[in-house]
């Protein structure tokens, strides 16, 4: 338990499921992940990519096939040694998607249960439960049963229970997906404040990108059981490592083309014509297929032809006012672009417009044939 030890250390963990009458699914495919104290790592990825499975392996609720997991320097799973510590001895808190509050116990009894199991005395448990209730601002609910309180309140109780023992590692499996948008936003901020205050390490699963961006110190983008990229929200958004990550995070426009170089400098031949790019920005050699990814908010549209070199004429096919910005779908010949731009009045459908973007905002990736 030295300070230098990472809070969570997962090494080449693998877990496959056998589907009925089907091939095996590699739900977790040789994943390695290391978390320090105070880290807030969000696992983000499409449905069925193995996020829950990874989380449950850490919890001990699922038996991995191979690999190693250690918590605070203590090994809890090691396939080579045949070691597997059961979940009740791992000292991890967990918030379940369905909250999993015990319907026959009061709110206070629910929160106090982990302490009771840890052998804490009555007085100590009561004091700690009271502190948790105060912290979550639900003191008046102590003697209610879970069936008598609202969804948002249940969520707070579930959180309080997970934190009650003061564990250094807390797991969250889509904890906010059952509450409505307003409450969700509020709880998110509370959770963030709580985590920064108590300093536990959090491993958090969600589908919701906004949630991931706002909570994470680091986001791990998972697809097909593999972590494709892990980094700060800014890194993952601005400099995605591959096409999969780029397309999964945020909204993206994709332009497919071929790398060319006719002597004047490297460029990509696309349906919109030839787009010049810096040598360093190109992932592969002349003649290979690449995809240019751009974010909708990096595009500009105007009614007049801009002076910039790279601009394309198009026609607005759809237009919506979203408050902070307007959302457009613009046809540039065969190509369709999604563009977000501020403005008090959205341009009407059918407008003839000019679209432009700086070459720096186009990121080139090697095309994947599946995409």
């Amino acid at each position, binding site marked *: 338990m030295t300070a230098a030890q990472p809070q969570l250390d997962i090494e080449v963990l693998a877990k496959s499921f056998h589907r009925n009458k089907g091939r095996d699914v590699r739900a977790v495919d040789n994943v390695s992940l290391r978390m320090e104290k105070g880290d807030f790592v969000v696992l983000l990825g499409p449905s069925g990519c193995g996020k*829950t499975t990874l989380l*449950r392996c850490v*919890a*001990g*609720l*699922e038996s991995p096939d191979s690999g190693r997991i250690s918590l605070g320097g203590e090994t809890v799973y090691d396939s080579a040694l045949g070691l597997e510590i*059961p*979940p*009740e*001895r*791992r*000292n*991890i*808190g*967990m918030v*379940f*998607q*369905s*909250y*999993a*509050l*015990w*319907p*026959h116990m009061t709110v206070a009894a629910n929160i106090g*249960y*982990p302490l009771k*199991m*840890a052998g804490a005395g009555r007085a100590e448990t009561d004091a700690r439960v009271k502190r948790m209730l105060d912290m979550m601002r639900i003191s008046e609910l102590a003697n209610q*049963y*879970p*069936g008598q309180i609202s969804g948002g309140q*249940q969520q707070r109780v579930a959180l309080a*229970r*997970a934190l009650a*023992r003061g564990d250094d590692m807390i797991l969250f*499996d889509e904890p906010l997906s059952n509450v409505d948008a307003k409450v969700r936003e509020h709880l998110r901020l509370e959770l963030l404040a709580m985590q920064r205050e108590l300093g536990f390490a959090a491993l958090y699963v969600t589908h919701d990108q906004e949630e991931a961006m706002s909570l994470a110190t680091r986001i791990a983008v998972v697809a097909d059981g593999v972590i494709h990229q892990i980094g700060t929200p800014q890194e993952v958004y601005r400099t995605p490592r591959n096409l999969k990550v780029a397309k999964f995070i945020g909204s993206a426009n994709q332009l497919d083309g071929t790398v060319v170089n006719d002597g004047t400098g490297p460029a990509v031949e696309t349906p919109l014509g030839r787009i010049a790019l810096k040598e360093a920005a190109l992932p592969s050699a002349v003649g290979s297929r690449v995809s240019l990814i751009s974010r909708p908010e990096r595009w500009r549209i105007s009614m007049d032809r801009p002076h910039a070199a790279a601009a394309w004429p198009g026609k607005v096919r759809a237009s919506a006012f979203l408050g902070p910005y307007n959302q457009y779908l613009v046809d540039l010949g065969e190509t369709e672009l999604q563009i977000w731009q501020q403005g008090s009045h959205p341009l009407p459908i059918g407008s003839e417009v000019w679209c432009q973007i700086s070459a720096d905002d186009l990121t080139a990736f090697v095309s994947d044939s599946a995409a």
Partner: protein
Amino acid sequence: MSRAIASARRAPDGFLVISAAISVFVAALIIYPLGWVIFDVLFADWRFDSAPFVALSQESGLGALLLNTIIAIGAASAVALVIGSTFAWLSERTDVGMPFLGKMLPVIPLLIPPIAGAIGWVLLAAPRAGFLNSWLSSLASLVGFGQVGPLLNIFSWPGLIFVYVIYLTPHVYLSVAAGLRNLDPSLEEAARMSGARPLTILRDVTLPAVAPAVVSGGVLALITGFALFSVPVIVGGQGGIEVLSVRIVHSMIASYPPKTGVALLLGMAIVVLIGSSWMLQRAILRAGRFATIGGRGMRSAKVKLGAWRWPARIVMTSYLLISSVLPLAALAIVSVQPFWTANISFQHLTFKHYAALFSSNSFASTGLRNSVLLGVAGATLGMLIAAVISFYIARNRGSRLAGLIDAATKLPAAVSHLVIGIAFISAFAGAPFHLHGTLAILLMAYLVLYIPQASLTASAALAQVGKELVEASLIAGASTASTFMRVTLPLMMSGLTAGWTMLFVLTAGDITASAMLAGNRNPVAGFVILDLWTNGSFPPLAAFAMILTALLSTVVIVTMAWTWRRL
């Protein structure tokens, strides 16, 4: 929806009229005989008649009778509750890993009718000629204990309770296993993450959360036990342990004229016992809170049994042996013996009892044929009627007539088969219907007896169809009748098939009503079995029980395989 209402207002919907008529007819078929028998016995000539009470007070050993019933069924239900709940927990929540057993357990009473199982256990553990006794005593002399007397005696208190337990356990299992399956596993996982060990979780979380299922399993066992006639008539009779159900049937058939008054009042005692069981259930359930907060996470971390895995497997397998394999084996052996003996000799094997059963127009083969006929007719009619009634009730929720019909279809479960049997005899056997001993009275009685189960499965099947699908069809302009025929019925099919199977098995294997209502002219399987039992002709009895079991299990397995394939 609004269009459906509008058109309903313009002209009465023919289909709803027909289904209302069917529902009312069935309700009448249930209520009329019950009302009639109570009136006829207690208020003949429009004034209260105390004669039945006098007759009852002259009955011998009433106190012992009541006590026997409560002790035997209470003890058996308690044991069944423990065994059934344990098995349910093992197969739903641990890595014991015996999916076949989990599927088999609840259907054992359907595969092997209790009467066959009870007879099988008589053959195994009767004091003199029981197979197990003879094997055990030769084993004892082999290992040097010398000559020992019979070790097992099925005709005893433990024997009677034991056979009850075999047949009550599946009811508990079914209820508790369903409760566990519906329980969000993350409730238990949350407890594990809180540091609780598996047995602590069982005590603190699982048991309290499935308490309603456990309690209703126990109450189901009690109710089934009170009404069960086959087990005590076989096992208790010889042991001199008489219970209520046996005395009731005997009051109706063993004396002439039937002591309807006594039977009815004793039947009322059973109704009271059943009612008290329900009150007990409500009292227990009111004390706690059980609303489960639903969740999506439907996989659960299985409890690892470790060293206990094999003992658990052995215990579960033993139950399968005890409840089905052993009694069936005993029946099979005796059915090919010239006479029942514990000395199995292969030279004297004979199939003559089977041959006699199939020889044309013997008493037994007529009984079997009638039972199959009644089973098919009763199950088909019963499920159709139940489907129509459940549809009618669902479409007219809130109306007083629908409420009345709903209550009427539940009534037979509350008043027990015995009372229904009595009511049918006194209402339909004599003038003006003169249906005594006919197949018609049997068919009507079976329909009424099993309508609660039938409408339960039908309304469960209907609930699965979902209101939107029906409404979408009505909006699309289909009449109520074609909505029922084209949307509701096809979607209910797999549920109805399961219900049909259950109804067929219960009807074809029925003992209670058959004992009271069938006659020598129109025997049915249950009647034949009791007749053979009374005559003490064991090999033909065993052969008949084998055939009946084979028939019922074939139907169950075929329809189960059919519905599984379609799912």
